[in-house]
């Protein structure tokens, strides 16, 4: 299995991948992009209390499935060395924001994330 602590060359390559990965709807990269655009002043690494390089790992994971949410969050959190509760809350907010945007047929990167940030219920 791949080493979590990628060397710097690999990390550089993977950072280049993120832009293309964010165009897909099945990787977490897309959710991180939504958050970054909606909350440009908030650093995701600070929100998740993890090193920046863990965000690359996180971005390249598949999105957690709604019907396996807890186990998927647990797997991702363990692999990316992020506290599970923080990751759970963070992804729920972004997923809700994404759904709100889709429901209103607006840009998913829009301002609705602000409203979703206060919700804690299951997406």
């Amino acid at each position, binding site marked *: 299995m791949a080493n979590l602590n990628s060397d710097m060359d690999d990390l550089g390559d993977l950072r280049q991948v993120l832009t293309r990965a964010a165009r897909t709807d099945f990787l977490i990269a897309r959710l991180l992009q939504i958050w970054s655009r909606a909350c440009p002043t908030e650093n995701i690494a600070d929100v998740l209390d993890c090193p920046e390089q863990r965000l690359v790992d996180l971005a390249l994971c*598949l999105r957690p499935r709604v019907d396996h949410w807890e186990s998927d969050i647990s797997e991702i959190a363990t692999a990316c060395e992020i506290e599970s509760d923080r990751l759970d809350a963070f992804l729920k907010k972004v997923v809700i924001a994404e759904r709100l945007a889709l429901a209103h047929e607006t840009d998913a990167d829009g301002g609705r994330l602000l409203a979703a940030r206060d919700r804690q219920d299951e997406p």
Partner: protein
Amino acid sequence: MGLAEELDLIHRRLLTGSRVAARDLFLTALSPLKGHLAKTQAALDEETRHDLATDALLIYLEQPVRCDVDTSSLWTYLCLVASRNATDAFRKKVRHHRLLAESADLVEEWSGRANNVRRTEDAIDARQILEQHGERLTTNETEARLLQLMLEGEKSTDAFAGVLGLDPSADDTVTLVKQAKDRMRLRLRRLRGELEL
């Protein structure tokens, strides 16, 4: 464990629902896939090879079930996807360069003409330039008609005023027509510069 075996294990993890296996796929396969493209598609630049390798992984991740590792390995599957896309990219690049080379002569010839001399004996095919570059040179129908007049060597200010919707007898018409033509000449010069690159 070899690369092919390692990737097949990742494939099986993906099929059983692992979320992290996608990241492991990137960590394990991206560099080897770029290396494969460097050997088999040397005509492509490094950035293109990187994008092709990335896209091959993303295409696979979208529907992992399309890959049957009982028939052939995931590594073989990824190489096939990347190589197929590389061939398409190369053909597209060749087609693009050929089109630019063909149209560069036309734009160069027109740009070298005197502004106020109509040379019917070597008139430029305005229609061809409009078809190939119209979208980059014009943003609306009025500009397209203005460009067509210029390419056809029209000299009459009244004709340009008519296209621009200006009153030919107004005091500022000559100035406004000149400004519109200057803007279009600037775009043509920029296009010529791009085509010469």
